[in-house]
């Protein structure tokens, strides 16, 4: 079997919280709770969840910008958290990131050349200024900007153009993986469509792998071929986009999908029923217990593991098999 490009292995991430009593052991917040994933070359993998579910933390760990508390990430078979830092720096040319905020992700004090060329430092060979400029101009054209834009500064561009610059920066080292953390969320729909199209074209051209993180389900459905739904730091459902979106099994996935307001005013939504939690939540319970309409005693006592069901994986004792 072919080796996966990225292998996320049992990743936990805890953040310390401030103490509430003086002599208490510092409490922690578990942002990620045993995440296992494999991303194959050329695929686009979606990570879906609400704010605070840990999806951005996961992105940062995959990018080796943050250390997991336990577990690790393999990139092209190499353990990112167990290699010399010089090697990691060099390896970084192969995975790059496109961020959410087109205004915050470009240093306002640097010109476009400086911004886009920055990842070139991860290459082993040192490039001359002329070589850098040549490569930057080339990539700018590729993302739909002008080769002459190298001397301009970020504030001279609109939000959509800035996001193109960010894509150019991520692409300049010809990486195999691009992690896109809410990369189109801040854009207006008309611009969002342009940027999505660009990303799709680039994927076809360079056989890129995307890890596409978003809270926008319709965008994820459109862009990705595999998807994982994260709730409170755990994967609750995972599978091919097609099977997951057409046949969501986990109550949480269903809640998410149903909550998206339909653009057709004739498709009136059902009212949400008020749920009264019936079971006491413990550290062993299913994380979705207090919001689940199908919760049982079993769910309160044991956390379900991911099991295969109807062609994809779901962590639920009572999946909705229609």
């Amino acid at each position, binding site marked *: 079997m072919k080796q996966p490009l990225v292998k996320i292995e049992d990743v936990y991430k805890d953040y310390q919280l401030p103490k509430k009593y003086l002599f208490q052991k510092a409490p922690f917040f578990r942002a990620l709770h045993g995440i296992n994933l494999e991303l194959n070359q050329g695929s686009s993998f979606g990570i879906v969840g609400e704010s605070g579910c840990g999806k951005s933390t996961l992105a940062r760990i995959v990018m080796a910008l943050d250390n997991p508390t336990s577990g690790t990430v393999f990139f092209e078979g190499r353990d990112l958290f167990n290699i010399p830092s010089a090697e990691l720096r060099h390896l970084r040319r192969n995975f790059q990131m496109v961020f959410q905020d087109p205004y915050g*992700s*470009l*240093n*306002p004090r640097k010109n476009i050349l400086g911004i886009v060329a920055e990842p070139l*430092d991860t290459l082993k060979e040192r490039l001359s200024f002329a070589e850098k400029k040549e490569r930057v101009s080339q990539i700018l054209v590729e993302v739909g900007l002008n080769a002459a834009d190298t001397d301009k500064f970020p*504030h001279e561009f609109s939000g959509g153009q800035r996001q193109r610059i960010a894509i150019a920066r991520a692409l300049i080292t010809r990486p195999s993986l691009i992690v896109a953390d809410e990369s189109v969320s801040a854009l207006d729909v008309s611009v969002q469509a342009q940027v999505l199209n660009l990303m799709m074209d680039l994927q076809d051209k360079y056989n890129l792998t995307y890890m596409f993180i978003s809270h926008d389900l319709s965008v994820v459905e459109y862009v990705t071929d595999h998807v994982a739904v994260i709730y409170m730091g755990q994967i609750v459902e995972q599978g091919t986009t097609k099977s997951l979106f057409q046949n969501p099994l986990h109550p949480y996935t269903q809640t998410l999908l149903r909550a998206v307001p339909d653009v057709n005013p004739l498709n009136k939504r059902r009212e949400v029923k008020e749920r009264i939690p019936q079971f006491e939540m413990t550290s062993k319970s299913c994380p979705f217990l207090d919001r689940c309409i199908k919760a049982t005693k079993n769910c309160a006592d044991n956390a379900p593991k991911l099991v295969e069901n109807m062609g994809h994986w779901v962590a639920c004792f009572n999946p909705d098999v229609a």
Partner: protein
Amino acid sequence: MFRKLAEVFGHGLKNRSFVIGGIISLLFFLVAFLSYFWTPYPVEDINIAERLLKPSTKYLLGTDHFGRDILSMLIKGARNSVIVAFVAIGIGLGCGVPLGLTAAAKKGWVNELIMRFNDFTFAFPSLISAIMITAILGPGSINSIIAIGIFNIPVFARVARGAALSIWKREFILAARSAGKGQFKISVEHILPNISSMLIVQATIQFALGILAEAGLSYLGLGTQPPMPSWGKMLNEAHTFMHFAPQLAIYPGAAIALTVMGLNLFGDGLRDVLDPKLRRSR
């Protein structure tokens, strides 16, 4: 670089504080510079016969109790103020900014340590440090430089850290880290340029404060020593003659006030000139 400076300057010309403050500050520096080449009379010349003269065409601002020319002493005193304030700013920037940048980059106990050090140094206003130093070394202008410089360190460290922390949260820092840049390189390449305008503004304010502090120390006799004239020292001497030559108290004080006001206005103007640019490009 030059294009940017020219741009800032162009915006500045529309700002009243920037222009007025800039002109006053420039005059002050020119006068201080002038003292190296020329003063109307040598300030060491004691001429008891012509003591405590009122302003006249010979002595534009009159003479003091030793018959020294007040104008000459003011000109030379400007030089003294500039040097003390400059070196003290240098100490503050040189130690404070790296400390602040480190605290912002490292977080954890390093940050805690630096911040405690900061709070602690704040507990010793320059006058108290100067008193301690004088108590063991005896008075001298070096004292004032060290004392004011030490007090400047936590000021710059705080400004640098505060500004740096907000820059560290921005996404372009994550981008730089994904490009394999370490904390030091990021601090120098990304953080510093983005907080430099704040540091410059703070420096002009500290410059003004430094002049005030130096005057205070010299006034108490803890700072600059005779025969080098200083504005604070002149005020101290004027105090003795307050009852029959009150005019002596006017000039040095006015010189201090005008200079400090000029620098403060310039700092305010500079902040306004630099700020909207920052906001727009965010």
